[in-house]
């Protein structure tokens, strides 16, 4: 998939397809233990995010995490964008699904 500067938005169900690639995922931390955090994604899945030393993820806030996929349940954080506490996760999830829909994905968004 292209150059390493692109990151496709996914949800937790799509992670297996992108192992080794850089992706973006919207998530909210539910538990943090030092160097990593367990977060919940837009489709309700739980993934582990390995944090950078200076990264702080506050609970109950939504973040978009740009990271590389280590395995289907873990991503390594490269960058983290803070979003507000108000995010319609359902909307996000629907959008991601639509993005990856074979009708739209190749033409509009990216080629797999």
């Amino acid at each position, binding site marked *: 998939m292209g150059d390493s500067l692109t990151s496709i938005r996914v949800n937790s169900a799509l992670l297996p397809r992108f192992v080794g690639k850089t992706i973006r995922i919207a998530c909210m931390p539910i538990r943090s233990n030092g160097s990593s955090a367990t977060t919940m994604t837009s489709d309700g899945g739980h993934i582990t995010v390995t944090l950078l030393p200076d990264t702080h993820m506050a609970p109950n806030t939504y973040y978009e995490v740009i990271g590389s996929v280590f395995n289907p349940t873990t991503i390594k954080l490269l960058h983290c964008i803070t979003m507000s506490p108000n995010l319609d996760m359902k*909307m996000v999830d*629907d959008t991601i699904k639509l993005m990856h829909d074979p*009708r739209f994905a190749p033409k509009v968004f990216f080629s797999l």
Partner: protein
Amino acid sequence: MVQLTAGSCIGLHNAAPDDTSLFDATHTLQLLSVRSSIFIQAMLATQLNHLVKEEQIKKNTISMLLIILGMDVVEQMVDKIGNPVTLTPEAGQNQAAATPTTSTSAQQTPAPAPAPAAPPPQRQQTSSSSNRGSVYPIEGLSPYQNNWTIKARVTQKSEMKHYATAKGEGQLFSVTLMDETGEIKATAFNAVATDLFNRLQEGKVYFISRARCLDTSNVPSIKYNFVELGNLESQPKDSTCDVLGVVKDVGECSEITSKATNRTITKRELTLVDKSEYSVRMTLWGKQAENFSSPGSVIAFKSVKVGDYGGRSLSFFSSSTMSINPDIPDAHVLRGWYDELGNSTSYRAHQSSGGSGSGTGGTGFQRSQIRSLHDVKATSLGSNETESTYFSTRATIVFMKPESLCKKVTDDGNGGWRCEKCNQSWPRPKYRYIMAMACSDHSEQAWLQGFNEEVNEAAFNEVMSESTCKTYNFLCRDPNGRGQSRVRYGIVRIHPIDYKEEAKALRDMLLNSPWGQTAV
């Protein structure tokens, strides 16, 4: 008649205070007044008590009459300006309202002459035996009945209003009366109004008769018959209904000037929501608007008018009532629901049912009917319609040009401003701003025109600078359907974009609509 009087009086005299035959004395009074001159009858209207006393003095029935007067006496109201208000005293007003209304028959038209002697004796007998039978149900009232009495509770009393017409001026107030069968509104004028205003109190029950009855064809039914906000669309425009809802938002009080009467009226808008997850706007007027201060409460509204502004809207009528946090099961259920879910639910507002710009004028912004400005212009150029058509569009304000304008008032050269319509001079006109906005979407630019209330320069400029370059949803009106090159579309409604809503709409369109399914 004298015999009658005497008999009654004697009967009264010996009767116990609670004896129902007391009411016969009212008969007596009436007959006396019939015999008297019309002048006295007219006086009866305004000075009932005094007159009665005089009568007492004349006929030596002081004691009996005093007994009657010891109860609360209620007069009726006559709703006609200036006519000699013929009042007749009614016996008995009790909160318990248990007193029978034998006085019904007592209230004859004091027409001078015709055999009042003959009918009254019969009436007297019958009335003493038949009690509640003489009370008319409110539903049974009609303009063709003259001798009726109703027993009703005052559910609502309006303020005393002063008016001035070409014929003169006066004052009036109105009440809503309610009994088991229905409701009716009654109005009292001038002298009667002054007298009764302090005597009729909300919540109390009175006997009322001898009022002139005007058109009772639309007496509404009494009980609360709540319509869920989601079902308001099934209520025709201009009908009245009851709603029970939670006040989600309370608008500010604003003053508008009525073009008709040139008076300022305060109004306030509330947003009501209920379990059907619909929201609707309710407009309050006057005192209710000013005194309203209970956001978040459950309110039962009765007899509010259904309008079609913005799809569906509600307006408080003069005959509407509202009770805040009423103690009825529906209200408790609603309260519980709102406390749990209400705040987080996003409510739908009614969309108007007009088609995309048909003559009836859809008055709500219709997302599904959004047209591009280019489309609008092209269509209007080709059509021959002469009515205004409405369309919804989304555009960004590119440029705003304010013009101030006083619509009806022209400079009359004397340093004052004269309004043509109502023929009055004003020292200073009220400026209303017309805003001409150049708005663009991806296809085209158009000039839209909006109105603004009188507002001072500073605030206005601030609003202007903030709104420029922002995108809004518009509902616009095309004034005469024929697209002319310099036409300005009037803005009927304008909303800032709620991105959440728009995103949802787009998603639904993609996922659910046929258009979305077939996209390739």
